[in-house]
C-alpha cells in the first residue's frame, strides 16, 4: 500500500466549471458539533443543521454519520474521484457507495470527522450541502444526456443551472420536506414520473424556428406510498423552466403538510388536492412569479459545448490479446452514442459499492479513455465513462479487469439495486444491500446477463417499505419486513411485479411475501415460468406487463396465477430443518427487527 499520490494527477485533467463548495461551512460544522457535544445545541436543531449539510444518521448510534456527496447532473471529474478515494480511506470504511440519485456516500464516519470530509471536498469543489434534510436534493440528469440518440437536446446544462440556482438559496432551506428534480434525455432512460419535478427535453417548431423547452411532470415519487407524476402541459419553453420550478416550490412551501411527517412530500399534496386543482395553482403561481420578479430571473445556463478530445495516453499501447469475457462485457455494459465511433461504458458495481483503490483507478481511467475527461453517475448505483472510442474498448476492458471493475451485466437485470438496509440505515428491517449482492453473484454465475429476454427487466430491493431501493418501479421489486413462525422470526420480503419508470411508468403490483433466503429461487422460478410461455419477441418485462394489464392469454393470466405457482416455494421450514432460513444475509445471530428513528422526515 502506498499513500495515494494526488501530486501526480495529470495536468491534462479536465476541470469542473462550477465550484459547489464553501470552505467556511467546514469550520462552522466542526464548531457546531463541539457545541452540540457540550450540550449547548439541542438535539432537534442540531439534527436539522447536520442534515442540511449532508450528514445523515447511522443505524443504532449517534457517534457516526453518513456523508452524502452531491454530484449535480451526475458529473464527476478524475481528481474528485481521487479525493473521495482518499477521504473514504481516512474517515470511512475504505469503500464508498454510489446512490440511486447521483450521490456518493461515505458511511460510518465519526461525527467529529465530518468537517474534515467537507474540507477535503472543498479542495475539489464538491459539497454535501442540502444532500439531506428538507431542501432541494441533488439535481439528477440522465447519464446518457448529450450522447443519447433519442434525445432532442442535452439537458445537462439545465440540470447544472437548476442545481446552482437552488443550492443555498434561502427559498429552499426550510421546505415542508425534501424536493427532487430529475432531468433526463428521453422517455426510455428517464425517471421523470417518479419524482417531484421530472423533465424531458423537447424541441418545438414555431414558424420555422425551433424552440427549446421541456415536458414537465409533477407530483410523482417513491416512498411508503408512491405516486406517478402528472404532465403539467404539452410544452414548457425553456424561459419558463425556472418560473415553473419556483412556482411549484412556492405552492409546496405554502401548502405542504408540515405536521404529518409521514405524508409531507409534495406528491401527497397533489393527491389530496387533485391534479387539476394543483395544475391550475401552478399556472396561476407561475404567472405571479413571472410578473413579480424584480429583475428578470433566468437560469444561468452554460451551453458552451464540452471539449471532446481523444486523450493522449502514456500507458502501454502495445497490442495484446483481448481478454476473455470482452464480448459479454461489451454487450451488457456499453451503449452506442449518437456520436459515431463512441460508446458509453457503464461500470458494474455490487449494490453501488466501490473500494478506495477502485475509485482512485477510475480517476486515471477517465483521463486515459474518456474524451470528455469526466464521468457520469447512473440512476442505478453505478457510473459511466462516456466518449470512449470504439477502438479503445478492448484496452479499457483489460484495464478494468486489473482493478476488479470489469464484471458484466451493468445494464441488465443482473445488477439489482439494493438500498443500504441494515448495513447502516436506522429504518431498515432487512439486509437488502447484501441480498442485492447475492442475487448479482448468483445471476452472473448463471450468465443471466447474456440472456436478451431478461436484459430490459430490473430487480430493485428496499430494506423497508420506504422505497430507497425503488422497488415500486422494478420489474421484480422487493421490500423488507419480518415474519415469524411461532416465536422465531425470519427476514421476509414483499414482492411486487410489473413496475416500470419509462414512458409507460407504473407501480408494481403486490404479489407475495418471500422469505429472504427464498428470493433467489423464486426469481429463477418466475424466469422458468416465463420461458415456458414466452412468445416471439417477448422479454420478461413485456410478458409481466401483459399479465399485470390483463392482456396475457396463456394459463398465467394474473398476478394471482403467478402467486399460486410460487406459494409452495415460500413455506417456512422448521428451525430444526433449516436454521439458515431464520438468519438474514450477513448475520449469524438470530433475526429480529430492530429500528431507530428515521431522519428522512427530520
Amino acid at each position, binding site marked *: 500500500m*502506498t499513500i495515494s*499520490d494526488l501530486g501526480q494527477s495529470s495536468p491534462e485533467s479536465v476541470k469542473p466549471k462550477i465550484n459547489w463548495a464553501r470552505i467556511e461551512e467546514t469550520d462552522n460544522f466542526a464548531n457546531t458539533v463541539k457545541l452540540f457535544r457540550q450540550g449547548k445545541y439541542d438535539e432537534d436543531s442540531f439534527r436539522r443543521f447536520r442534515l442540511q449539510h449532508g450528514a445523515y444518521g447511522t443505524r443504532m448510534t449517534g457517534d457516526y454519520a453518513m456523508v452524502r456527496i452531491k454530484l449535480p447532473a451526475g458529473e464527476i471529474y478524475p481528481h474528485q474521484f481521487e479525493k473521495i478515494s482518499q477521504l473514504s480511506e481516512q474517515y470511512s470504511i475504505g469503500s464508498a457507495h454510489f446512490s440511486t440519485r447521483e450521490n456518493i456516500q461515505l458511511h460510518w464516519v465519526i461525527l467529529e470527522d465530518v468537517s474534515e470530509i467537507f474540507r477535503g471536498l472543498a479542495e475539489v469543489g464538491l459539497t454535501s450541502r442540502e444532500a439531506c434534510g428538507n431542501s432541494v436534493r441533488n439535481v439528477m440528469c440522465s447519464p446518457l444526456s448529450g450522447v443519447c440518440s433519442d434525445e432532442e437536446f442535452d439537458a445537462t446544462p439545465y440540470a447544472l443551472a437548476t442545481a446552482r440556482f437552488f443550492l443555498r438559496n434561502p427559498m429552499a432551506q426550510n421546505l415542508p420536506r425534501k424536493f427532487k428534480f430529475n432531468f433526463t434525455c428521453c422517455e426510455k432512460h428517464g425517471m421523470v414520473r417518479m419524482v417531484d419535478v421530472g423533465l424531458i427535453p423537447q424541441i418545438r417548431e414555431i414558424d420555422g424556428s425551433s424552440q427549446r423547452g421541456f415536458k414537465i411532470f409533477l407530483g410523482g415519487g417513491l416512498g411508503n406510498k408512491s405516486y406517478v407524476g402528472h404532465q403539467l402541459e404539452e410544452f414548457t419553453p425553456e424561459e419558463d423552466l425556472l418560473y415553473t420550478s419556483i412556482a411549484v416550490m412556492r405552492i409546496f412551501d405554502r401548502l405542504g403538510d408540515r405536521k404529518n411527517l409521514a405524508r409531507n412530500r409534495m406528491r401527497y399534496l397533489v393527491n389530496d388536492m387533485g391534479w387539476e386543482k394543483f395544475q391550475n395553482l401552478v399556472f396561476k403561481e407561475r404567472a405571479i412569479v413571472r410578473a413579480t420578479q424584480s429583475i428578470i430571473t433566468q437560469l444561468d445556463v452554460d451551453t458552451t459545448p464540452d471539449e471532446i478530445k481523444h486523450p493522449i495516453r502514456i500507458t502501454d499501447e502495445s497490442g495484446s490479446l483481448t481478454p476473455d469475457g470482452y464480448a459479454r462485457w461489451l454487450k451488457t455494459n456499453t451503449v452506442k452514442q449518437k456520436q459515431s465511433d463512441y460508446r458509453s461504458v457503464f461500470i458494474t458495481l455490487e449494490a453501488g459499492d466501490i473500494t478506495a483503490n477502485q475509485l482512485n483507478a477510475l480517476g486515471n481511467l477517465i483521463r486515459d479513455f474518456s474524451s470528455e475527461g469526466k464521468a457520469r453517475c447512473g440512476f442505478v448505483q453505478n457510473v459511466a465513462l462516456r466518449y470512449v472510442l470504439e477502438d479503445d474498448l478492448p484496452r479499457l476492458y483489460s484495464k478494468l479487469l486489473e482493478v476488479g471493475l470489469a464484471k458484466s451485466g451493468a445494464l441488465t437485470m443482473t445488477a439489482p439495486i439494493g438500498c443500504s438496509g441494515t*448495513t447502516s440505515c436506522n429504518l431498515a428491517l432487512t439486509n437488502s444491500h447484501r441480498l442485492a449482492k447475492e442475487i448479482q453473484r448468483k445471476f452472473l454465475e448463471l450468465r443471466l446477463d447474456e440472456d436478451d429476454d431478461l436484459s430490459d427487466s430490473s430487480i430493485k430491493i428496499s430494506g423497508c417499505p420506504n422505497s430507497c431501493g425503488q422497488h415500486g418501479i422494478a420489474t421484480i421489486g422487493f421490500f423488507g419486513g419480518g415474519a415469524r413462525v411461532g416465536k422465531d422470526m425470519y427476514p421476509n420480503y414483499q414482492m411486487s411485479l410489473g413496475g416500470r419508470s419509462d414512458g409507460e411508468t407504473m407501480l408494481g403490483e403486490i404479489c407475495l411475501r418471500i422469505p429472504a433466503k427464498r428470493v433467489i429461487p423464486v426469481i429463477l422460478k418466475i424466469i422458468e415460468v416465463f420461458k415456458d410461455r414466452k412468445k416471439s419477441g417477448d422479454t420478461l418485462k413485456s410478458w409481466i406487463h401483459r399479465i399485470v394489464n390483463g392482456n396475457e392469454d396463456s394459463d398465467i393470466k394474473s398476478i394471482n396465477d403467478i402467486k399460486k405457482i410460487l406459494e409452495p416455494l415460500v413455506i417456512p421450514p422448521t428451525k430444526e430443518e433449516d436454521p439458515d432460513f431464520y438468519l438474514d444475509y450477513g448475520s449469524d445471530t438470530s433475526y429480529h427487527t430492530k429500528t431507530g428513528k428515521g431522519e428522512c422526515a427530520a
Partner: protein
Amino acid sequence: MCCLTKSGKILTDVDSLRSEIRDKSVRVIDVRRENDYKQDHIPTAVNLPLANLLSDDSPERVLKLVNSMGIDDETSVVVYDDTFGALASRVAWTLEYLGHSNVTLLETTYSHWKSLGLENDSKTPEIQSKEHSMHLRSEILATSDYLESAKTRDDVILIDNRERLNFLEQHIPGAISLPYRTLASNDHILRSKDDMKRLFDNRGITGNSEIITYCGSVGTLSGLAYYALKSVGLPNTKLYVRSFKEWKNLQKPTEKQEDASYWDLSAE
C-alpha cells in the same frame, strides 16, 4: 521529556537527510525486508527488517542490535520504510524506549523518495560497532495490566488505529477510532502540524490527557499514531505495543457495534 528528540523534532525532511548523509552525521535505518534493501536503498542506510526486530524485542537484544548498527547515545538516527511510516515508527519507538533520544522518521516513504529521482544504491555499509547505554523509558510503554487500570481514569484517552470496520467489529471498551490512514497527507507520512492539531481538536484529543494508542498486533499502526500525537506536542503518550492481539489472547473484555451489518457495505 516530552519530545522525541532533544530538539522536539519528529520528522526529518528529505533535503536535511541528504545533507546529513553527505556530512556523515546520521545513521539511516531501512526497516524494509532484506531483499528489498539489497536491491536498493538510501545511501549509507543499514537494514533492520521489522520482522527481525520483532523476533525478539527484549531490551537486551535491542541493545545488541543498536550497538551492531553503530549507534551510541549521541548518534542521530533516521528511520524509513515503504509502508506509510508505520514500520519505521515501531523501530523508532523501540530505540526511544531503550533510551535513545535522537531518532526521527523520514517524512516520506522510500517509494516516494525514489519517485523524486533521489539517490539510492545497493551497497551495504561497513559498520563499526558502538556502545549504547540502556535507560528504559517505561513512561512510553503501556502493558495490558497498565491499560486495564488506566482505562478507568477519566483523563486517559485510548485510541484504536485499525481500520474502521475492524474497530466496529471489536475493540477495547472505551477506545476511540482513529484509523492510521487519517494521519498521513498525500506524500507525507504525517499531516502538517496545523492539520493534525485540528483533527485532534475536533476529536477532543487535547490538553494534558494521557493518551494510549493500540492497533492490531505489534504496535506499528499505533506507533505511527504515537508519533502523530507527539508531532502536535501532546506530552503524555504511550504505546500499547502488544496491542489488540494480546488483549484478545488474554481474554480481556471487548466491545462491538451491534445490530448493523456494516461489513456488507465494503466492496473488498
